[in-house]
């Protein structure tokens, strides 16, 4: 009897939604659990870091890591799990692209800490205490992980074999990936485990997307009553579908909301935000500079719109840091 393959899950800077996605496999999760031996899953099972450290290098068949990398601890765990695993999968948008936590790259550590621990309305911290790396309390030395200035994707920290896109990846994509891992039917290293074609291709509204589109205004979903059948871009709403990889079956559009780009770009695009920018801007129905400024001005937060999930993975990676 051959031993079941060992599988591990880990979370870095994430919201917990990716863990939820695993549970969302529903009955299929039982098939997975029956077929594998889960050796590490901090969210659900009581194994500790020293348990992982005690394993032989390369003894875990596959580890799924969700979340971006921001702290020293996350970085150490990424390296440790890489060493112990034969296959390392970046699971979800944060791990693959930086994700929502990656928008912290518009800011810096000092302001992030100041907002979270001092100025946010819900904070009660009269002494203005900030997290300390080292403290002594009652004779005990205590430590906290350090925060890096920049949020990184998993592959900016260690070598990654595959990527499972989405915020969070859909049960269908997860099940297919696990199946591929168990049967060894894996594509080339570095592949994203989803179709390599723009989301529009699998969107039910594709037929109503005009070949030549010209928009006199960009609208927010809250400003219009959206038709439930027509292409959202044709209705003037910024839908990231054309600049985003398919695989989710246009889940957001099915809910009558525009795609916000969580599955990242296809393999032919290096910088998802720049590609979306190029596409959106060229739709503007004006050749006049002032008019163009007015129309594109409706995109109030270009980085948050174009790079909602992919700022750390972008060409510039973050807001420029002032050098003195």
């Amino acid at each position, binding site marked *: 009897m051959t031993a079941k393959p060992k599988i591990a899950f880990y979370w870095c800077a994430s919201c917990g939604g990716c863990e939820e996605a695993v549970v969302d496999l529903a009955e299929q999760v039982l098939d997975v659990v029956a077929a594998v031996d889960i050796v590490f899953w901090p969210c659900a099972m009581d194994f500790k870091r020293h348990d992982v450290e005690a394993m032989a290098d390369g003894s875990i068949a596959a580890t799924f890591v969700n979340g971006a990398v921001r702290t020293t601890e996350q970085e150490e765990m990424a390296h440790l799990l890489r060493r112990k695993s034969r296959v390392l999968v970046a699971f979800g948008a944060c791990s693959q692209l930086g994700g929502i936590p990656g928008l912290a790259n518009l800011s810096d550590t000092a302001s992030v800490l100041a907002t979270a621990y001092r100025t946010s309305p819900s904070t009660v911290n009269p002494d203005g205490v900030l997290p300390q790396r080292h403290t002594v309390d009652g004779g005990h030395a205590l430590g906290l992980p350090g925060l*890096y200035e920049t949020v990184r994707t998993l592959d900016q920290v260690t070598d990654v074999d595959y990527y499972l896109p989405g915020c969070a990846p859909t049960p269908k994509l997860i099940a297919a990936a696990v199946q591929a891992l168990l049967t060894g039917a894996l594509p080339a290293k570095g592949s994203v485990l989803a179709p390599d074609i723009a989301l529009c291709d699998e969107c039910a509204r594709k037929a109503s997307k005009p070949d030549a589109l010209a928009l006199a205004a960009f609208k927010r979903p809250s400003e219009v009553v959206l038709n439930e059948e027509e292409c959202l871009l044709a209705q003037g709403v910024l839908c990231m579908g054309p600049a985003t990889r398919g695989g989710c079956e246009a889940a957001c559009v099915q809910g009558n909301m525009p795609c916000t780009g969580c599955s990242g770009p296809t393999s032919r695009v290096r910088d998802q935000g720049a590609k979306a920018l190029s596409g959106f801007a060229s739709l503007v129905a004006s*050749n006049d500079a002032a008019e163009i400024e007015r129309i594109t001005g409706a995109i109030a937060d270009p980085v948050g719109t174009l790079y909602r999930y992919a700022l750390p993975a972008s060409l510039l990676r973050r807001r420029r840091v002032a050098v003195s």
Partner: protein
Amino acid sequence: MPETTTGSAAAAERFEPRIVAFFCNWCTYLAADLAGTTRLKYAPNIRVVRVMCSGRIDPQFVLDAFAKGADGVLIGGCHPGDCHYESGNYKTLRRFQLLRRTLRALGIEDDRFRLEWLSASEAEPLKTVVNDMVEKVRALGPLHLEVPAEAFAAEGEEVAAR
């Protein structure tokens, strides 16, 4: 990054901006050619990349130039109405405006990214544009786009002191 310089005025004097220029084949590139054949002298800080039309300039090219060390990016195309492919330069204008605002949000000043319409005969205006841009970018200083992933910033007291 701590720069080991003696006298910041002298350092500023020495700073030679690197500017990547994307010029369209039918207008601005010919203007640059004409500047060369007529021996017009302009600042040697630009590296020209010829593209068939300014509309071919993917915003990724601009970001890539900045990411790889350019201190400024200049785009040159045909005047409105004169694009060899009719509407390429209008698309460039639209992308330019949104991209400049995006760059601003990422901490890259407006003077580092410029769009100019220059026809094949406008060698003299090209010279003025290049010299002016080089001076402005020189005044801004190097772009220094390092990603301080390693800048470990949560050493308690140090952060508390800010």
